[in-house]
């Protein structure tokens, strides 16, 4: 068990969606870890970039702040 504080976490319904989400924000290469096929961990700034990119594309993810 490890505690990672102040990271960005993205979980999607499936792997394809996660790949698309990361591609939309151009963050595929910036992922810190893929802990599961549909679960990615990023730096916080990159995660905000993902949210902005998704909202800019008319997608509104569930954002837990």
């Amino acid at each position, binding site marked *: 068990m490890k*505690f990672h504080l102040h990271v960005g976490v993205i979980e999607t*319904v499936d792997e394809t969606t996660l790949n698309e989400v990361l591609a939309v924000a151009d963050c595929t290469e910036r992922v810190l870890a893929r802990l599961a096929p549909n679960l990615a961990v990023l730096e916080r700034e990159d995660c905000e970039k993902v949210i902005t990119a998704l909202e800019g594309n008319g997608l509104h993810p569930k954002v*837990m702040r």
Partner: protein
Amino acid sequence: MTDTAIKTARGFHTAELDLLSVLEVVIARSPKVLKNGLPNLAFFRAANAALHEPDDEADGVGFVQVEFWLTLARNLELLANADGQLVVTPEADQFFAISSGERLLRLRETWLAATELNEFALTPELELPALKKGRTVDVTSDVPVADRILEARRLLVDVVSSLDAEITLAQLLRRLEREHRNLFVNHDDDSSWRHTYYRGIRERGGREDVERDGSWQLVEGAVLRLMCTLPLARLGWIDYDPQSDVITPAGEGGLTEPSFEVVVQPNFEVVALGDRPDPSALWKLARFTTPRPEGRVRTYVLERKPFADALGRGEPAAGLVDFLAGLSRSPIPQNVRFSLDDWATLSERIKIWPDALLIEAEGVEELAKVVPEKLLQALQPTQLAGGHYAVPAPDPGVLRENLPPRRAVLDYSRRLAPVINPTEGTDLLAPREELHLRARQLLALVSHSRSTDRYELDAELVTLSSQAIGGEELLRRLREGLSRPLSSALSLAIRTWAGEFPRPYAGGAEVLLAENREQAELLDEMPEFRRWVDRRLAPGVFLLRPNGTIELRKLLEGLGIELRKDARGR
């Protein structure tokens, strides 16, 4: 309930709706906070337009009410400055969840203790050249400091609470002048030449400070008039009728019962109808819609983003739809209901914690069994794919209290310790227990795993990664991620793989060596010579193109110059 009690209660109800309107404008606009700490003028105009009785900006009154409600909202922490924008906080949800009576008490306490609010500055009839930026008072001025204002507020509340009958505001002001002349400014020494003027206090548009003699009503009277008509009347201490100028002490009897309904229209607009809307219900509505408080009818537009934001705050989609249906007398139009369901489904497909505490399960570990119950109860994390947990980053104190003993927290808001150790060869050592996600990312970019703690640098991976994120970035990460600098050999290898260095060449080459600088320059000036030179390696050293030796030998022999057979002696 007596007539006065009804009037007082309605007065406070209107005040609550005004506060709600200001907060709704914040939701709708997310205004930028300027350097002076206040939102921009556009926000003030919009918020003023949303009030029950807006101030008249053209009259020079400014936005007294908006400033008043904004200060109370900030002091109650209903609003916060987040990344340069004014936003509503979760405390606002709690504030509107309590009863109207409790809200009244909290607003009263907040006003009585508000040091940032200076009613002298709010009074439209006065100008205060002594009031500096940030509302601090010049020491040589007569503008009262915060403590004096607080005392005056309490005294004024005591005075109006002790009223037992109606009184005109003018009468009250005369009584205050008589009995509490020094309420804000000390007048005991007005005969002194030093106290001829109210220092730093002018009439609006005036060119000089107001003379003290005979001006109490003009200065203190104006401030007290504002205090009576705004905080005292709006926060239910008195009932004030502006037409007759009469103040009635607040009646006992409680608060008004809400009476309203909403109409959900097929164009996604939700219209609140009724003269006594419930501020709690309207606030809940405002939190998952885009409110439009301006105008006579309160309208809330159902949109995908605020709806998804509400889901992110933990509101269940079905709960929001039921809440909306509960407020509406007629059923929600089918297209609206379908859209809300659709938005909820789409939002649930992508869940993001932008600033999270991630509890990672390692190997086959089952977190549900190993994470202490106390921690789960305190943080209530969400279980993710692979058995990991995530929760919005908690307060450090809460985390410290509930963390299992001897467990370290890797804080990614800081630079983490470098945990990868380079060896003499191409192996990297990284103990699994110490590995954080940044180190793991780096290892994945440049190496493949050989055993639990041992990784081997991979030239192909380094090349691919440097193409993906840029060679410079990759090398920066390597420098930051390694516990000690790379050996020269490894540094050369990695920088070459990353494309920073072109690959070196070793082998035969055709060169021409000139023996001195002038000889080299003369050769270089000959076009026939330059045709066979690939590049100049050093002064007097020319790398030749293939067959350059044969051709240049012919060229120079044509000039009667025979080339040497070996390079020794240079």
